[in-house]
């Protein structure tokens, strides 16, 4: 089988147009990796900007308000106005902070988030790096975020921020386990960690998706979705920044662009967790065609299908945020350790048994043709 990936394709394309000119080869290689990375970075920034807009509009609808409607048509340019405001704002670094850690923390959070994007399959060939350990990679880099949170909480030299940082450590480390275990149920079925292959081993129709493969993956999907809410600090699990308890949590001392980085990472995380759920459980951008050989038209349809699954999941995340109150930290931790971890582990074990007993066939579909 030919090993496809996006940088290789771009490299070939660049080689084609540059021909035998004097451009050195290493420049082409660098460019073929930088172009998709920069494109995805810009795209995810745009998506998280749109998500801030969506959050404001959806919350406004839920609360009988109008929401942003002044900047641009329907207030669509509100995110630009916010960005400009945050960039122009004075960057305050309090005297008593640990300056190095204080400055470093937002970048760690942001890069942890953006690293996860590299293995998100946007449908078709559009995946920056189709790593053969893709799923494990996501789990690993998303736990990098907690280092940044803890760092910012500690470096701020503020007791509320410290409490927020400690809470986020407890929360993210706890909820990573059920999230990972429920993702691994799918790995058992697909037999691979590669995100692209997981998407390709599903089909275009709902009964081809891994969520409906067997009852345990169905449960695992919901465990993953709820755990990912906790991992990305969304209500009802927004303890690290619980506004009414910890003022604003780990980011209380941050202002200007440093705060904006935390903020962007938070919204990018909504998108990432929704796209993991869509790709792993809901078939991603699979329309039953080969993602690399089917031509640009079908490839764009795949991207559309992928987003048709991601956007509702994002909206559900926002909807939950504006409907539910917050749990208490001990209730949340006991929910994780007493229910979610045993349940996700049971799902994993039962899926393994299912695969053994039914020879890898799902309820609706057969693995081998």
């Amino acid at each position, binding site marked *: 089988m030919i090993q496809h990936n996006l940088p290789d394709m771009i490299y070939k394309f660049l080689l084609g147009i540059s021909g035998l000119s004097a451009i050195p080869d290493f420049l082409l290689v660098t460019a073929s990796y930088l172009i998709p990375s920069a494109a995805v970075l810009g795209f995810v920034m745009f998506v998280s900007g749109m998500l801030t807009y969506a959050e404001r509009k959806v919350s406004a609808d839920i609360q009988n308000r109008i929401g942003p409607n002044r900047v641009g048509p329907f207030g669509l340019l509100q995110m630009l106005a916010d960005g400009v405001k945050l960039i122009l704002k004075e960057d305050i670094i309090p005297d008593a902070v640990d300056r190095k850690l204080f400055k470093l923390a937002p970048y760690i959070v942001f890069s942890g988030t953006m690293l996860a994007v590299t293995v998100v399959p946007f449908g078709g060939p559009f995946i920056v790096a189709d790593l053969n350990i893709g799923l494990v990679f996501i789990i690993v880099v998303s736990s990098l975020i907690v280092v940044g949170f803890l760092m910012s909480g500690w470096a701020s030299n503020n007791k*509320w921020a410290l409490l927020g940082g400690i809470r986020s450590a407890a929360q993210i480390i706890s909820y990573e386990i059920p999230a990972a275990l429920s993702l691994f149920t799918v790995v058992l079925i697909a037999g691979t960690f590669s995100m692209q292959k997981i998407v390709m081993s599903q089909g275009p129709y709902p009964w081809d998706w891994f969520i409906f493969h067997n009852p345990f993956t169905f449960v695992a999907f919901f465990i993953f979705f709820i755990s990912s809410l906790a991992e990305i600090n969304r209500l009802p699990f927004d303890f690290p920044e*619980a506004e009414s308890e910890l003022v604003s949590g780990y980011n209380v001392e941050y202002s200007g662009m440093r705060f904006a980085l935390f903020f962007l990472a938070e919204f990018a995380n909504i998108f990432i967790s929704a796209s993991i759920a869509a790709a792993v459980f809901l078939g991603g951008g699979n329309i039953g065609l080969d993602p690399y050989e089917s031509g640009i038209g079908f490839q764009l349809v795949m991207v559309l299908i992928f987003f048709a699954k991601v956007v509702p999941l994002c909206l559900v995340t926002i909807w939950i945020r504006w*409907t*539910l*109150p917050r749990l208490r930290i001990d209730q949340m931790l006991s929910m994780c350790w007493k229910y979610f971890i045993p349940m996700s582990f049971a799902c994993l074990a039962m899926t393994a048994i299912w695969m053994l007993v039914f020879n890898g066939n799902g309820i609706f579909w057969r693995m081998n043709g």
Partner: protein
Amino acid sequence: MKAYGKREAAITDKFSTQEMVLSMGPHHPSTHGVLRLILQTDGEMIVNVTPDVGFLHRGLEKIAEMVPYQSFMPFTDRIDYLSSLNCNLGYAITVERLAGIEVPEKAEYLRVIGAELTRMASHFVGAGALLLDLGAVTPFVHALRERETYNTLIEMLCGARLTHNYVRVGGVSHDLPSGFREEALKFVDHIEHEFIKEFNDLISFNSILINRLKDVGVISREQAIEYTLTGPNLRGSGVKYDTRRDDTYSIYDRFDFDIPAGRGKFGTVGDCYDRYWVRIEEITQSCRIIRQALNQMPENGEVRTKLPKVLKVQEGEIYVRTESPRGQLGFYLMSNGGTRPDRLKIKTGSFSAMTIIELISQGVMVADLVAIIGSLDIVAPEIDR
């Protein structure tokens, strides 16, 4: 206490950690105004809470000694800005009782209607702010939407939306405008039959909320009485005491209404949920009173007794208590026969509610303290006056 041996003492010393002193407030999102609590915490567990009040002291009692009797009325708005009409009413009744002033029949009805509307609006904010502190923003906004209708109604009555200054010594400032009766009935029907149900479906019976509020901040019946809690906080502990019924004033004896009391709906009697639920039920009872008052109110009549511009009150002293949404509002008035009070002492519900926080917050988490403050419905300016 058990005497520890040397070895145990050494181990305890090694692992014992220092308690952290957290200053919650004076500017903290969930202290409802300018209020400071000094928390001694062990991680997130609270060891001790010391309230530090006084940031909003405006010297209202001293101002009362400086101005004529009627001129103090706008200042009573500022005792508790969420229920200014109830404060107006309490002061007016105090002066009227001491001076022996009769109030016209229609004015009494208008006073009750205004006071009960304000009680509802105050509970909207009280319950909504508690939910806001627990992270549920939407119910708070829904409650504020209804408060907006209330503001419009009160604006029809007296032209003001926050500090009403509607009640006067010897009556009320304006007669009701045409159309007010229908609008008020519509509002009351909407609240009783639509809003409360929607609100309860949205949040009151949400299991996360129930788990956050039940068995938290339990105040027993005896503790509530010992700490002189009043109003919904007292009734939340299961004591059926309401000044409107038990020490009746104005024309409250003419209306038929229940006194909701905490009965441990989901947990222990006197927990945060009971206090929350008493407020929700009181909104319905206020609706009943308003409907009866609107139907019984005479069509025509004076709304204000003719009084001299500068009122002279005979020598004497009086203590009058009325039921404000945040508990008993007591005015102690001393007169030496002049045009100004000799002394005016104001006792409010939030003040006694503040004192019990120290007792019930031992060993809870920071998140629970937020729920406790919210469930006691403390409004900072009412503590300091």
